[in-house]
């Protein structure tokens, strides 16, 4: 009886260990696979030259530019809106129907499948507003994808600022906006930036949205109204056509490196901030 209990326990714990370690193994497998196959192809020429020929041999510079451009622009668009929206929810809003509606909308937006966001961008920005397949259309569609993510992380960051620090400011005769802009936002800044970095990582890895808003044309965009092809779209096309797998691996590796960079820098920032606050 007692032995049974002990054996069951040991078996169950073993299962949990396996479940936990599976995640590491899977992640390791994906990273290793992409790394081993892509590293041979990843060099300066691959990064900084344009592709040529029917099989897109050569480099992926236009795709790197397109990806950074569309993501950067989306971030510029979404950051002020999302941060101020979070300020409203965390500092100004009184619980009630209005706030419930906003939160439900944000949750819904966060749950919208990216393909739906892509078609929405196609209908509204590309065709409706006449921006065509362009970096601008892509950035606008991506900003709707990023909005709820940045809103949530920013709101959490603002709420994590201790109440008594706010009191100190109010107690000195500061107005609400003075308190928010001079005390609360600066104090919450590291965590807000962490959220922004994570949302950016998400946008960099996004495919279904940009394929229908920025297009698939290999082009180094200069103006926001120029079309482009993101790295993810490039990887998708290379992989599905199966014509230039080395370039696909190189692109995948570069994508993974960027994502890893975003995630690790976000973690680093968060840890540094935690240490500084003791």
């Amino acid at each position, binding site marked *: 009886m007692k032995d049974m209990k002990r054996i069951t326990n040991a078996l169950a714990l073993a299962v949990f*260990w396996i479940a*936990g370690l599976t*995640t590491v193994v899977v992640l390791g497998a994906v990273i290793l696979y992409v790394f081993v196959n892509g590293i041979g192809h990843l060099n300066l020429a691959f990064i900084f030259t344009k592709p040529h020929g029917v099989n897109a041999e050569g480099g992926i510079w236009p795709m790197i530019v397109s990806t950074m451009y569309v993501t950067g622009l989306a971030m510029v668009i979404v950051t002020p809106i999302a941060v101020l929206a979070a300020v409203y929810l965390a500092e100004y809003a009184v619980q009630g129907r209005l706030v419930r509606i*906003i939160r439900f909308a944000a949750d819904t937006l966060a749950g919208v*499948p990216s*393909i739906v966001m892509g078609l929405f961008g196609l209908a509204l920005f590309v065709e409706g507003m006449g921006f065509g397949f362009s970096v601008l259309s892509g950035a606008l569609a991506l900003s709707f994808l990023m909005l709820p993510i940045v809103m949530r992380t920013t709101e959490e960051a603002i709420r994590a600022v201790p109440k008594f620090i706010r009191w100190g400011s109010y107690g000195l005769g500061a*107005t609400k906006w003075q308190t928010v802009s001079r005390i609360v936002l600066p104090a919450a800044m590291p965590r807000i930036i962490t959220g922004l970095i994570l949302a950016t990582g998400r946008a960099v890895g996004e495919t279904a949205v940009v394929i229908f808003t920025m297009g698939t044309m290999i082009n180094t965009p200069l103006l926001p109204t120029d079309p482009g092809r993101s790295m993810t779209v490039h990887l998708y096309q290379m992989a599905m056509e199966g014509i230039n797998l080395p370039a696909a691996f190189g692109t995948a590796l570069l994508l993974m490196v960027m994502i890893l960079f975003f995630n690790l820098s976000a973690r680093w920032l968060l840890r540094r901030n935690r240490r500084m606050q003791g």
Partner: protein
Amino acid sequence: MADEPRTNDMPSVRGEANNLKLVSRATYFKEATLKNLFLLCAFMAVAGVALIFVFVGYRGWPIFSEVGAGNFLFGMEWLPTKGLFGILPLFVGSIVVTLGALLLGTPVAVGAAVFLSEIAPPKIRSVVRPAVELLAGVPSVVYGFFGLLILRPIVADLTGGLGFGPLTAWIILAIMIIPTIATLTEDALQSIPDGVREASYAMGATTWQTISRVLLPAAKIGIVDAIILGMGRAIGETMAVLMVVGNAPGFFRGMGEPLSTLTSQIVMDMPYASGMHRTALFGMAIILFLVSMGLVLTVRLLSRLREETS
């Protein structure tokens, strides 16, 4: 005392300089304007949902009005060239792919969450937790690529054929929803007070008994939330599924037989679709939007339920 009028004209002791200031009009308007500006920003979320609904709905509506909701939603055949726009096989495909992924992924995800929250030594935890987070960050097209080149041949050996089909999609999607479910389940477990654990251990329960009889039941609603959100992720996932599922718009025939889903069919057809075919794709996007909204609504209702019961 309550009847006594509030007056501001009692004699001041120190003269005018010390009079209380009234709220200045400029300050008042500045603060009010800012507040309304922030509200407007917050309302962008609502505007986003409304815009999606209006624009995707506007494009997709004719499929309901001209082809008919019945023919569209319950039509058995997706043959746009012949004017047949039945999405039932695609819808079933989405559900098959999603349920399989949930069946495969949920046990691992919940197990990993329990491992992280209750079992893992801190050192191991500091490796596994970032791994779970990174797993969420890997772009879906990379998962698709990985599935296409690594999993597909393995599955092909198992089932015969080319390996395009539900089984490959299940495995890839299961990996993709693990972080969603694991993170939320871990949150639910972490929110259980330590006293509950101690009480169980103090009564001589083993770790497994504590987990299975106390902690998992206590975290039940949180885990259900996690699974629903994982389901939302799976049903809406596009690129990874598209790259491994085979994209044959028919009903489920076997684990190794090509299949198609709502999301993958949209991407496959969109580049060349026109007329009613294109409208039908927007119609499918409406359905996906409504399903994802329904899942979010379910989670909210559940959390309200939880608030009421506790």
